[in-house]
């Protein structure tokens, strides 16, 4: 059972809110939910001696689920931001990402974020840091889709001229599903540290944080990192 009070007991099962269309962190392959985040949480659970149960949902639902204490923890490449930290607790960072712009192969009009004008439409995902970035730093017309894959699809089909999203995801997606039809342009914008999310004042956070430290120290974290991303920098 999931304890809504945020207390921790060894051996209990905790519900993990996650995404399922965010390569390579959590996505579906051959019907299974797989990805770096998924394996990381499983490692942590093993280390800290608790069980996990995944629930897949829209990204905005994960954040809302944390804010309303609906789930025990959330992992979905969630960027740690000051705004979010007001309503959500985070573990220590476990991955450093950043945002990048992507356009269709052959588009020469947009080469950097500065080329986005009022008349450019850019798609991204609802409630993501990319959406806030676009709102705060550009005048572009933003289309925020519930799923990032739908945002890419909007680009592929010409509904929009660009997508703004997290670097690792753009790179993986453009190579895999988009067959190279989508390309990154411009430099990496802002740093993005991913953390595991918890409802405010959850006891689970310290437990997970501690396990994460252990995994980083004993090398199992690096092993996992290399499996998914190659040599760590």
């Amino acid at each position, binding site marked *: 059972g999931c304890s*809504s009070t945020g207390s921790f007991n060894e051996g209990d099962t905790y519900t993990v809110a996650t995404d399922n*269309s965010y390569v390579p962190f959590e996505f579906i392959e051959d019907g299974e939910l797989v990805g770096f985040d998924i394996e990381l949480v499983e490692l942590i659970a093993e280390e800290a001696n608790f069980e996990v149960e995944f*629930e897949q949902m829209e990204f905005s639902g994960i954040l809302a689920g944390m804010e*309303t204490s*609906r789930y025990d923890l959330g992992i979905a490449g969630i960027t740690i931001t000051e705004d979010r930290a007001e309503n959500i607790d985070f573990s220590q960072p476990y991955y450093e990402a950043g945002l990048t712009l992507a356009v269709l192969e052959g588009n020469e009009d947009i080469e950097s974020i500065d080329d986005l004008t009022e008349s450019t439409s850019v798609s991204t995902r609802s409630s993501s840091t990319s959406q806030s970035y676009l709102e705060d730093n550009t005048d572009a017309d933003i289309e925020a889709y519930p799923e990032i894959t739908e945002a890419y*699809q909007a680009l592929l089909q010409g509904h929009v001229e660009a997508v703004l999203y997290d670097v690792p995801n753009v790179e993986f997606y453009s190579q895999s599903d988009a067959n190279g039809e989508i390309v990154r342009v411009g430099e990496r914008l802002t740093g993005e540290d991913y953390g595991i999310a918890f409802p405010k004042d959850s006891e689970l956070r310290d437990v997970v944080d501690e396990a994460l430290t252990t995994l980083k120290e004993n090398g199992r974290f690096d092993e996992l990192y290399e499996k998914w991303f190659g040599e760590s920098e």
Partner: protein
Amino acid sequence: MLESIQIAMPYLLEGLKYTLIITVVGISLGCVIGTIFGLMRTSKSKILYGIASIYIELVRGTPMLAQIFFLHFGLPQLLGINLDKMLTANIIIALNSGAYIAEIVRGGIESVDKGQMEAGRSLGFNSSQTMRYIIWPQALKLMIPPFGNQFVISLKDTSLLSAIAVGELMYQGRQVASSNVIYFDVYLIVCVMYLMITIPISLLLRRVERRLERS
């Protein structure tokens, strides 16, 4: 297309199962709610009538998607309780079908010829006996076509639950379509799967309606 079917079918069938479960459970509860509130809407008591009217207007006046988000994200924020997703799903379908079924019940009862009530009362039946033995059986028959229609509507309505990741047919379709980048094929298959349930129902209804008209 064949390949798409191969990839998508297992998920879609799983989704269909949930779609059907939620529809059937939701609409069964909706029948109970609808019967109660529908009877209240035919009641002479202004209070009962008023309560039923408020319920019906609130539900029918707001988009189901807004209700879903309100129930799933809004209420927990205020009350601190979280409803299970499947429970939310059933409540949403029950509340909505209930409001429409209430109007179907009211309509059915009001469509029974006034003379039936008078004939019953003049024989000495009291008003609840007249309702039970004379009005209700006839109203029930008139309610079959709109009820079938409501079943189709509720079935389609479950698709909105994909917004809160209830694993029904539409949700599975969205997931498969986007994770395999086969939008055309998958959404076509999804539509066909819905049609495979809705069309037979509506053909059946047409026949029932024609039979009712003749009698």
